[in-house]
Structures are given as C-alpha cells and as structure tokens.
C-alpha cells in the first residue's frame, strides 16, 4: 500500500503560514502599499502598512498564487510588524531566505519574492509613496 505522504512538498513553516495566514486583510487607510507580481506564473502580492516614525505598526496582505508565495507574504508581514524600519533594512538576503525554511526547487522563486518585498519596502518608505 502506497503511503500518501507525497514528496513532502511543503515544510512546516510554509504549511503553518499558508493554512493559518493571520495577516490576511485590508486596511481602510494604509500609510503605504507595496505590490509585486510575476506575469509568467501569476504570483501576486499586495501589502498594506501602517507606519509611525518609521515603525511598522501593522502589516496586512492579499496574495494570489502558489501556497509558498501566499505563505511568504504572511511571513513577511509577521516579520516586519512592530519592527523599526531601520532594523528591517539591516537584513541581508541570506537571512531573508532562511525565513522560509528549506524549500523545494519549484518554490525557490519565493526567496526572490521575499527579497523583493524587502526591497520594495525600502523603496516605498524612502520615497514616501503610498
């Protein structure tokens, strides 16, 4: 009898953040909004932020795409909520990638998504564009 364990496509970090995405939502009046998308695979993430004195008070998202990209959005929002932007900006790509845990090859693009979200955050706060 074949055991239905698949090839363990998702690690526990991804499973938890995809099935319990507690940062999903919309803000009535966001201070900042960032959005990224991939036109080929269709993964798309929109993040809305409340910011005071460069502290991220609240971060919520809407995401469409593979489970890992949805989880990535949740992980990003969790990691920046309550944090000073100056601290967030110190994160390096390697550290950022590790936030997602070990990924399957087909999910590696989500590391790029997470790095891009951090870059977009930097660009958005620096420019002050909502």
């Amino acid at each position, binding site marked *: 009898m*074949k055991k*239905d*364990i*698949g*090839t*363990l*496509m*998702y690690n526990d970090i991804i*499973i938890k953040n*995809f*099935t319990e*995405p507690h940062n*999903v939502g919309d803000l009535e009046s966001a201070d900042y909004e960032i959005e990224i*998308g991939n*036109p*080929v*695979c*269709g*993964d*798309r993430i929109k993040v809305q932020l409340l910011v005071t004195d460069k502290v991220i008070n609240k971060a919520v998202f*809407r*995401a*469409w*795409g*593979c*489970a890992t990209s*949805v989880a990535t959005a949740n992980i990003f929002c969790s990691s920046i909520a309550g944090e000073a932007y100056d601290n967030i900006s110190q994160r390096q790509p390697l550290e950022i990638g590790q936030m997602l845990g070990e990924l399957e090859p*087909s999910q590696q693009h989500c590391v790029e998504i997470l790095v891009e979200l951090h870059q977009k955050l930097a660009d958005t706060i620096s420019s002050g564009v909502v």
Partner: protein
Amino acid sequence: MELHNALKKAGLDPVKVALSSVKQLYAMTESQLLEFKYSLIADAFQFHYSNNAFYRSACEDKHITPEVIKSADDLIKIPLIPINLYKANDSHKLLSKSLKSIELEMRSTGTSGIPSVSRRCSETVDNAILGIYAMYREFFEISKGAGLYLCPSNEEIPEMGMIKALNMMAGMLDTHQFMVKNESFAPEDALEQLARWENKFDRHIIGPPFLINRFIRYLKATNKKIKLDKNTLIITLGGWKRFSGEMLSRKEFNDECIEFLGVQQNQIRDIYALVESNVVAIDDEHGVKHVSPYIHFSVRDPKRLEQEVAIGEVGQLAILDPLSCSTPGFILTEDLVRLLPKKQGDLRSGQRVEYVMRLPESLEFGCCAVNLDKQLDDTEELHTETCPVIA
C-alpha cells in the same frame, strides 16, 4: 454499483480499474457506463464529505448528505465548487487531505492575471497521469514520431498545467523540440526543424491553437506550404482566444492547417482540459470530443444552476470528477458547452462535448496560452522597437 462493489470486494480500487479500462468503458452500454460513473462519483462524494470540513459545511447548508445520492439521477444534487475558488488566497480550505500530503501544485494563469492553483496528492497524481495517458492512447495511439512543440517547456514554466499535460506526450515520442524559448518563437526555426525530421519520423505539431496559428501566419506571409506526413497529428490544447479577445474559429484553423501544413481534417485534434480537474476531452477522427469515460459532465442552465439543459443545448459546464482525492472534484466551471448526441456509427458510449465559449461574465477568457500569446507579441514589439530597420 454491482461492478463497483465487486471490484471493492476483490480488493481492487474501482478508480484505478476504470483508468486502465478506457476502451472497455467506452464499449459498455450507456446505462452500464452511467451506473459505473455514478458509483465512482458517489464514493468520491462520500470521501470528501467525510474529510473536508469546508465542503461538508456547504453540503449541510444545502441539506445534502451522501445518503441523498442514491442513483445517477441524484448526481445533479451534488454541491459544486465554483472554479474561481481555486484562485482564492484561502484555497487551502478546498483540501480534503493535509497539505503535507500534497505532491504537486499546478496552476493556470489567464487574462485576469490571477493564477488558478490546484493541489494534488500522490494518489490524485497517479490518477491524473494514468487518465491522461490512457486517453492519449485511446484517441491518438501515439507511440513514436517527432513532436514539434509550439509552446515552452516545463523547464521555463514549471507546474503550468497546460504545458505539463502536453509535455507528457513527449514521453511517447522518439524525439521532440520546444520552439518557444525565453518568451520568443522563431517560426523559421520551426520550419527548419520539420525539414530535418522529414522522412525520418512521423512529424506531429503540438501546442495551443494560437501558437500554431502564428506558425501558419509565417508560412502564409512567406508564401510557403508544407506537406506533413500521413500519420501526422496536429494536437491542440487551450488558447482558442487571444489576449486581445479575438476568437480563432475552429473551422478557420482547420482549413489553414489543411492548406498550409498539408494535413487532412481527421489529423487535427483538439483537447479540452482544465488544471482544476483531471478530465480530458479529446477529438476523435471525426472531430467529436469525447469526455473521459469515468468523469461526468453536467450542463446546467446558467440562470437556474440546479437544472440541466437538454442534450444539444448550451449551458454552463459542471464537472464531477472522482479521480480527485485531494480536493472535491465537483466543479462549476465558467465554460459554456453543449453535449452532443451519439451519431450513427459512433461506437463509443459516454459523453460528447462541444466547447462554445466562456461565460460572458467571466473575467477569464483563456488559460496560460493567452499569456504566452501576449508575451510573444510583447517580445516582437520590443524587437520591432529596437530593430534599426524600418518595417
């Protein structure tokens, strides 16, 4: 139900038996086949009702339990999942199994830009692969030849449903080449490849209709006509509508294949499939599309979804797919279709379908082929803008 029960009693999985018996299922009487399909679907419904809290809650809201589904006539009572839920960011609720059991995630991206994501456990992957190959063998009988793929490989677009399904055919061929690379298609290269294979292999052209149409437009523009082989198949899947909304008529497409590719009508075969389902419906040699014999199509009145339309009338397609174990395979699509009656001399039982169009209300009017079509246009436009030669 007798056959289903006998198989179970013998320790066999009725779904797996069905998947390996496509020809035999098509040879059943209509009533026998419908009865067997009912038993597969009822079993699947029981499973998802028991293992999917979201789906069970929806069923209970409609006062539907497995006990209500007593015969094929009751299949219409099975609650349907709107296909757009596969785009939702909380689509995990569709799962009847743990996310840990998921082996493969597939997607399709149409004009809305929002991907529809389906997740398959190992058992569902087994079923899907067996089902697709069985249908390919039933209708194409392919076991050799060269495949000119007028689409990207899965290496470029991993987990794209349409590409995956077409890619599976490559395993049955002697050789193949993907002619869309890095969002670019050079039809002259495709023509050269066909020439290299001439007299060495039966040559097949495989891809979305609009991408094959690009190749034909090149032949037309350069005043070229080619003669493919007597065993050639032109195999299409998806992409009957361009990103601009322009619809390519099936008749026009067929006529141009005949004129410019040198094939006969019976060599042009279209496949209907969805990433969210394990169904394939494939043209026979007469251009009639046969539905996988273990899957049931129910065509509903779009204004009264609880009612089916008569055979031959256009309605909204609902799919009852017992192959799906990770999510309930009971889907209300956004496709308008009609079921066709069996004609004299057609020996297969089961359902025949003709695709008509997407629901006018749908935000989607294509699958990932639409995006490929647009990307190729964008690439050509970029090349034109950067080309120093004035056109």
